[in-house]
């Protein structure tokens, strides 16, 4: 039995060492969706709280593990020892101590928590805030800028150092709007308008994803968020507000005809070309394609936006995105090529 206990110790310490190694092996934070982020004021507040709690947690964990390890290493030597252990059944001071100490630690966690709650859920925001209406659909994101008359899908641009106010709408089921780098998530709930208010502080491209299970293609409901400089944003808004580009090449011209004649226009809007009425949900079931060519990704941000991927998507949406609402139209050959050329020309 003694040898077994020595083996236990040996394997035990090996395990501990391996865990420590693994923990430090996690230094790879080169990840676009990591949550220890500071892309906005909101994210900074959350991260600071996050780190505080992690430190407290680590301290408590260390205490527990050290005591346990000591207990095991010291008292397992008694195995086979005929002396009986002390019948120590209670110790009031000790018990009071380990009731009060955690309570104090919790107080150190709770107070900043409550302050951060109040801070991150403002009931008012400045009048000059840019409102972005986020509409979650199965399984793509629509972004409307009610003040600017812009609608995009899968990609949202915001300017740096401005108050951005996201209003979250869902037309079907519960989704969750999450850009890890810019702060926490909020559920997008039908019949209820949730909001996130934040001030982005870093320019760049960030990834977001639906975080609440929403059916078959939940994994394929991603989006991109671009934080521009003030000027960059202005230019982008101007470009998006412009009417769609007239197709120049022959293929693209032919593609425009196909777009109008094929059922594409039932669900998709290209301003001035197709799209009818929001009331009848005509032209609004799928993303607005007016400036489709300017976007970096497509189909719920699961692909880069290039002709090859677009063709693959149009050819068989169900195959690349299970449950996709977009029907297979049976386009192939030059028709497909021309349609792709047209859509990609909509810069």
């Amino acid at each position, binding site marked *: 039995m003694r040898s077994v206990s020595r083996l236990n110790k040996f394997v035990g310490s090996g395990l501990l060492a391996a865990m420590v190694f*693994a923990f430090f092996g996690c230094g790879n934070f080169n990840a676009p969706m990591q949550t220890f982020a500071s892309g906005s004021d909101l994210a900074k507040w959350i991260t600071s709280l996050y780190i505080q709690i992690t430190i407290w947690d680590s301290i408590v964990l260390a205490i527990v593990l050290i005591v346990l390890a000591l207990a095991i290493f010291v008292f397992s030597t008694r195995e086979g020892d005929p002396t009986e252990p002390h019948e120590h*059944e209670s110790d009031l001071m000790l018990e009071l101590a380990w009731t009060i100490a955690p309570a104090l630690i919790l107080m150190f966690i709770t107070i900043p928590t409550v302050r951060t709650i109040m801070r991150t859920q403002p009931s008012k925001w400045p009048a000059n805030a840019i409102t972005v209406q986020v509409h979650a659909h199965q399984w793509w994101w629509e972004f409307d800028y009610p003040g600017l008359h812009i609608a995009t899908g899968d990609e949202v641009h915001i300017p740096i150092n401005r108050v951005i106010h996201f209003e979250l709408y869902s037309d079907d089921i519960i989704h969750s709007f999450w850009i890890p780098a810019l702060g*926490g998530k909020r559920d997008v709930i039908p019949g209820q308008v949730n909001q996130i208010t934040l001030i982005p502080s870093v320019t760049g491209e960030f990834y977001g994803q639906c975080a609440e299970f929403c059916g078959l293609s939940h994994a*394929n409901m991603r989006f991109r968020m671009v934080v521009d400089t003030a000027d960059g944003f202005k230019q982008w808004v101007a470009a998006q507000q412009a009417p769609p580009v007239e197709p120049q090449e022959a293929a693209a011209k032919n593609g425009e005809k196909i777009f109008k004649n094929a059922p594409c226009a039932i669900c998709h809007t290209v301003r001035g070309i197709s799209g009818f009425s929001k009331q009848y949900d005509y032209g609004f079931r799928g993303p607005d394609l007016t400036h489709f060519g300017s976007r970096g990704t497509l189909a719920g941000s699961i692909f880069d936006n290039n002709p090859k991927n677009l063709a693959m998507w149009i050819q068989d949406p169900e195959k690349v995105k299970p449950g996709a609402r977009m029907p297979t139209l049976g386009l192939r050959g030059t028709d497909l090529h021309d349609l792709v050329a047209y859509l990609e020309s909509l810069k």
Partner: protein
Amino acid sequence: MAAQPKPLAFEHPSYLHDPGGIWSWITTVDHKRVAVLYGITALFMMAVGGMEAMLIRAQLMVPGNHLLSAAAYNEMFTMHGTTMIFLVLMPLELGFFANFFIPLQIGARDVAFPRLNALSYWVFLGGTIFLHLGLLRSIYGLPDAGWFGYANLTERMYTPGINVDCWDIGLLILGVSTLLSGLNFFVTIVNLRAPGMTFMRMPMFIWAMLVTTILILLAFPALTVGLIFLFADRFLDTHFYRVSAGATPILWQHLFWIFGHPEVYIMALPAFGMISEVIPPFSRKPLFGYPMMAYSLVLIAFLSYGVWGHHMFATGMGPIADATFSITSMLIAIPTGVKIFSWLATVWGGRLRFTTSMLFAVGFLVEFTIGGLSGIMHASPPVDLQQTDSYIIVAHFHYVLFGGVLMGILAAFYYWWPKITGRFLSEKLGKAQFWITAWAFNATFFPMHFVGVLGMPRRIYTYAPHMGWDFWNYFESVNAFILGFAFLLFFINIIWSAMDGEIASSDPWDARTLEWSIPSPPPAFNFAAVPMVTSRDAFWVRKYGTVGTHGVAPAIAGGAAAAPIGAHAEVEEHIHMPAPSLYPLIFALGVFLMGVGCLVWTRLIIMGGAVTVMSVIGMVFEYPSFGKFDPAMIAESTLGLDHRKVGMWAFLGSECVFFASLISTYMVYKDRNLGGFDAMILNIPLTSVSTFVLLTSSLTMVLALAAVQRDDRKWSVFWLASTVLFGCIFLGGQAFEFTDFVMQGLKIQTNLFGQTFYTLVGFHGIHVLIGVCWLIVLTIAVARGKIGKDRSLAVEIGGLYWHFVDIVWVIIFTLIYLMRTVKHA
């Protein structure tokens, strides 16, 4: 009573031995056999759930994998969660260990209601099969909306298949089973303890189970109500979770988590109890801080009702609700911390023996602490917004449920297996299993913290490369397979032990509690004589004389310990065990048929219902002790109360939560009604008359009881029949009211008012209907002379139910009818 104790010869066969073969297992009501049935089923489902987990990990091994389709993946994670929670952890803890060891640890012969126990098992088996019924339709037939089944994804519109129907009805069936066994164990613990076993002398496992059963009784009704609403939405086209009618899917989340958070403790507390049983014998010390341990269990349970909102921080409940739920959630950490430190203090200074069981207990301490601490993070709403629905949550609850609960269960397996089967599990295989599990578990789930921090959402069947997740996912998957291998070792160990394991003595671990005082495996009647308890760690004191081991010559152990406590039975012939019964199985079949009827053929519901009702009536009259006042039993019970009455009251308590959920839904939805019919349609004069009728029926009911207690058969029948009559008049009034509303155009589908009104008042009506049937049976029994003064308890219990239905109506009449103009929200 013979004055001189006669030694009892120990040639009694164990509970496992029975010439009756398989039939004796089907009709068994012995808690140990029922436990074994639970154990086998749950272990089988553990293998199934494990396979599902392997498939999940295989799919996530590399980004963009095509091993499973999206549909199959969603089914896998849904069923993995549902299976592991409802079909593995809870049955193993409640059905297997609690069922087996509650009576043994408290010195009882069986649970309070042995047939109800068997019934729980068969209903559980029915529910288990039901969850998988969709597989008959197609290979993609398993539920796929998540174990949490968030509305409105579960609406027919978004999940049209029968899979979610199976999930909904399957969970309702499982809920019935769990509620009944919770009730059973509650009454057992409260009322069947051996003489002298006060609350403060109960083993800690019994404390944990007591608190767990209370949680079950008070949490499951909320789930039942949520599932009933879902059922109505899917089958009757109502709009409990549909926005188009003004409802909100958030209601489901509230009801689900009112159940769901206590559910976490329903799984965790038994494991706490098991660990508290395992650590002391292997440390050779009494449990440290017993009162504190018991108290923290109670506190955890109490607080667990005030924290459901922490699962919903992302839904936007507002800063005040967020802060409140956050603070209450944080508070839970204090009693939990007390428990961890008390276990540490128990280990400290002990003479430790690292058996496999102890190893798993130590594993529990480490892993559960990690899981608990990450839980504190999620209790902080701002941080939770970055964590919820990401892999860090997956890591957290696997640390709690696998590293905590399952490790506790494994510790209990290695600890109690010799008592259950009379044979040891192999220590060698066990240690191998432990070390492989310890490595592979941490290597699988600890990196999930990392991918969670790196932003990987949960429940995604595929992910993009270059997000920083690739390596860790690969690593996790490989280790998950190793973890699977560890469980393979476990199953091999079980089979090996059952066939060729080392024979165990009655007290192989030199343990402290009563179950070790009887042979392994125990005889069918457990204790030849009811043991007397004078302190905690009753068996230890028997063996060594004091609670601790100081200064007591271990020599006593050789003599006294060898002779089990019950060795001095006086009148062995008095041990009568309940006779086997087939009715539990028939009841379960009836319930199963009703479920199937919902899916395929409506008439089957009525047939199944008939089978159920007949089996209940059959079961009631099966034993001649029906309704009998038994002074001996009452004298022996812990509280001096009849446990049938205790059970009835506990059940009524549970019903309170059921009706509270229905009533609060009515009140919440009342103001969200989008026009059309509203409460102004309610017919006050008619229902006033109904109210008088129901109150009068309560009067006739007590008069009937008084008559039965006087043994006055004529008046008993008269008053019982009047009660039935008044009940029928009430039901008639309700039928008229409902018909009238339907004629006016208010159907259950019409609007929020219609559906909440019909479900609330309808469920009350169903209770009245059940009461009327019950009373009719009683009336006939009284008229035929089957119930007299000595069996008045039957009428008393029926009366309690009837009065409860009455007081629920008192509340409904006030809140729904008389306060119809009042705005609630």
